[in-house]
């Protein structure tokens, strides 16, 4: 109780004694600054991902052939002392030695940027017709490339925002599938013990002893490229979670083994409750917080796996964009040398999401033991 007590005054002692499990959890979690900050960052990332069509200045596949490989622009907020956001235009210079175009900022041209601008109509989540975007330019075709443009002159910022939705949701969907598998197999294993337990433990050891990337590659490569995007998305997620469930299963099993011999479980058994009722009514609630922490720590692995597969060209395929699909374009190291934003825009997105998820998971894990 000492750790919780530290956060409160001595006079609060009664509060701790009567506080529920989740209240203690929250008090302990709040102390973990890095985890709190990560929670905010992740909340924003998921929010932006959820409303990607609104936050992205352009549709995901809108090419602009005049501005291929255009470098990132600086967003100026103030103009002559008042709020009037604008970006500078580009001047094209031909490099006669290397025989290629280079873009330089043209200070003379100011392209006004508007917030809550009415642009091309789009369907939010494929359902609701809308026109409003967070920001945009007045005329179509004007450049607004805050993170640069790719080889077809598509806006990297818009592409990264749209990929955020796919990459982050794969983590969530994958973890849900993994968790169902893990709770089912780990629960059966830990609750019943004996031969079933041995068999499932062998299975888990087997999955963990085999290198995952080649297995993923083998399965993912069999997904036909002409399948509709949504189907590919679910199959890839399924493939990733088929291998990712083992750590969750171990966690669940460990908790079951500990709780199985607790007095309150014995009491419930003596009262004639069925196995399923005991598991769901008495055992699951008492380790739910641990499971949440373990899930959070499992999501980064899913995201990284999807990124790796798509990067190799056997995961998600364009027109779906995920961070891995964007990074695939960065495989050409010559292109990256002259347009590093192809690598760094999606790269930083991956690293910050995974970092934040790791910190959040650490914080949740610490908080899951409020009396420790």
């Amino acid at each position, binding site marked *: 109780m000492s750790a919780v007590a530290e956060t409160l005054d001595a006079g609060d002692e009664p509060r701790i004694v009567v506080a529920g499990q989740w209240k203690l959890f929250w008090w302990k979690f709040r102390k973990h600054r890095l985890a709190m900050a990560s929670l905010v960052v992740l909340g924003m990332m998921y929010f932006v991902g959820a409303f990607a069509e609104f936050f992205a200045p352009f549709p995901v596949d809108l090419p602009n052939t005049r501005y291929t490989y255009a470098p990132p622009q600086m967003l100026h907020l103030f103009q002559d002392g008042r709020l009037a956001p604008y970006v500078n235009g580009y001047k094209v210079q031909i490099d006669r030695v290397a025989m290629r175009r280079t873009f330089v900022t043209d200070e003379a041209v100011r392209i006004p940027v508007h917030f809550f601008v009415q642009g091309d109509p789009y369907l939010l989540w494929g359902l609701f017709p809308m026109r409003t975007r967070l920001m945009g330019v007045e005329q179509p075709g004007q450049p607004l490339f805050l993170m640069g443009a790719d080889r077809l002159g598509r806006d990297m910022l818009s592409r990264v925002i749209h990929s955020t939705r796919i990459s982050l949701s794969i983590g969530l969907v994958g973890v849900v599938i993994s968790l169902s598998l893990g709770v089912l197999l780990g629960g059966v294993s830990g609750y019943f013990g004996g031969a079933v337990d041995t068999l499932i433990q*062998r299975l888990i050891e*087997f999955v*963990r*002893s*085999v*290198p*995952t*990337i*080649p*297995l993923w*590659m*083998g*399965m993912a*490569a*069999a997904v*036909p490229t002409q399948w509709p995007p949504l189907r590919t998305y679910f199959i890839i997620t399924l493939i990733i979670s088929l291998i990712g469930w083992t750590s969750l299963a171990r966690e669940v099993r460990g908790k079951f083994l500990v709780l199985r011999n607790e007095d309150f479980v014995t009491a419930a058994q003596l009262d004639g409750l069925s196995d399923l009722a005991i598991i769901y009514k008495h055992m699951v609630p008492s380790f739910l917080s641990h499971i949440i922490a373990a899930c959070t720590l499992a999501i*980064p692995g899913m995201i*990284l796996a999807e*990124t*790796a597969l798509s*990067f*190799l*060209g*056997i995961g998600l395929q364009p027109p779906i964009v995920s961070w891995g699909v964007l*990074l695939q374009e*960065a*495989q050409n*190291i*010559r292109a*990256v*040398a002259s347009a*590093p934003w192809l*690598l760094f825009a999606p*790269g930083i997105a*991956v*690293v910050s999401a*995974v*970092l934040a998820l*790791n*910190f959040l998971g650490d914080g949740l894990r610490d908080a899951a033991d409020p009396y420790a």
Partner: protein
Amino acid sequence: MRDYVLRRLLYMVPTIFLISVIAFIIIRLPPGDYLTTVIAEMSANGAPADSGTIASLRARYGLGDAAYIQYWRWISGIVLRGDFGLSFERNVPVTSLIWGRLGATFGISLTTLLFIWVLAFPIGIYSAVRKYSIGDYVVTFFGFLGLATPNFLLALVLMYVSVRYFGQSVGGLVSPEYLDQPWTLDKFADLAAHVWLPVVVIGASGMAGLIRIMRANLLDELYKPYVVTARAKGMSEFRLLLKYPVRVALNPFLSTVGWILPTLVSGEIIVSVVLSLPTTGPLLLRALLVQDMYLAGSIIMLVSMLTVVGTLVSDILLAWVDPQIRYQ
């Protein structure tokens, strides 16, 4: 000890069997079979195959048989004759393509394993002993970054840096001029000059994990009464550290080999695609993309099996060093 080794060897039999079944499933996963490819090729060449030819081909390759018969034919060919089948794309036996590359994959993975062990051990100790010092924060920071960065991304960033700031491309295991040369001391030196990049890239995340484990374990030990006692008796700080808490903390550190080798092999496969190393990674990817399934399946099977064997060897070595593991 003998019982332990025997038990572990026995456990390995179902594992190997399961791996072979999975490899076979992967070979059969893509829609259509080898013949579909052949027929498509024949009609593309303007000589469509008649149904008689197709039927005889089908019988020759046994494609009409039940799955378990096909599996038996495939696995018995491997076990009895070392015949892994044909690479359809290059029309040569799979065996002629993979052995050298498998060697390279495991050479790099094991080098990486040694590298991260040798480095993670002292860094972990330092990080625990000087807890919350600047050095510890630096290590922790890079550790978290290493855990969060996919290794192929790290490879890309390093390649970008070397192209951008040093004006040269990295990649491969030896310089082009040594490619077909016999092994000499010069070539070996050249190999050493190239191999550090993949080793660092593949090892980054594993090393970050190991440092954290070492640090946490040592921190658990450092403040125990037996350490205080030894210190009170006037033992020098360095000897004290190495003689008691480090030895206790070493145990979980050593037992991580089991799970780290599969990760390293995985990492090697994807990093070698980025850095175009002559290992199994690029070969596997290419085979999967053109659905050269016997080649792909064989690579997946052999890489997995060798990983399992490698883990077994390291486990046995550990059990030999540390009796506690034997009796668990």
